[in-house]
């Protein structure tokens, strides 16, 4: 039986064959692939910024719109739900019906 100490000596002597030139090329390829990370981070940050702007302007579009007529009557609340329609526009319409 191969004894433990002899086995350890075999392990010490063991070294797998290697083509260092090929490995160096592979390492460099891995390194160059790892460089896009900052670029990806920048693209990601820009995408988040664009999304934030989108959400901000989207939310603004949802706000009650206002406009001024010749008589300076504010037309508003076009996006308000029915139960919330109460205010100067409704008062004006009702008064001038």
């Amino acid at each position: 039986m191969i004894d433990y100490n002899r086995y350890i000596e075999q392990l010490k002597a063991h070294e797998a064959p290697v083509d260092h030139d090929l490995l160096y090329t592979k390492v460099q390829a891995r390194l160059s692939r790892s460089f896009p990370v900052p670029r990806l981070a920048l693209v990601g940050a820009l995408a988040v910024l664009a999304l934030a702007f989108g959400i901000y302007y989207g939310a603004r579009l949802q706000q009650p719109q206002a406009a001024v007529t010749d008589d300076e009557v504010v037309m508003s609340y076009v996006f308000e739900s029915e139960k919330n329609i109460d205010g100067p526009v409704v008062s004006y319409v009702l008064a001038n019906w």
Partner: protein
Amino acid sequence: MTERAVVQQDFNGVYFAHKDKVWRLVSRYAHSKHDREDLFQEVWLRVHQSLAKFRGESEVSTWLYRLTVNTSLSFLKKQSRQQRIRQVLAGLRFIEHDDGPRDEPDTAVMEPLKKLNPRQRIILLMSDVEEKKLEEIGKLLDLPVGTVKSNLFRAREIVRKELEKNDRLQ
């Protein structure tokens, strides 16, 4: 010279001075050709990432040894997890049964080490092959000496049994 160019220059210096040592270590830790090459690349990728942070408080070879050992341990743990998942999926017949990458004949000497878990394997190699002291291993792996000792004891026992078994089969 840009910071990136400096890092690349330092990297090449470290790489060419220590590539053989790193290869020797990873060829003991990983079994198949594919795994060895993968682990070797992983180590150098980490070296490249950490080189700018290296303050020279220790020898480059010590720093590199620690980095290689820790990268190898993470690599082996990840592999072990993937192997378990493959076995479970094969058991559930989701995938064909697969023992993982096939070993080439030059790794026959590594066969008994396959029975060890990643921590036991690294500890046994560090202690008996690389002849590191238990305290040093504990420090490098961030483990109490008692844990290192018990893992080493168990690992030696498993390897001895494997050697006996292989002898009976021959």
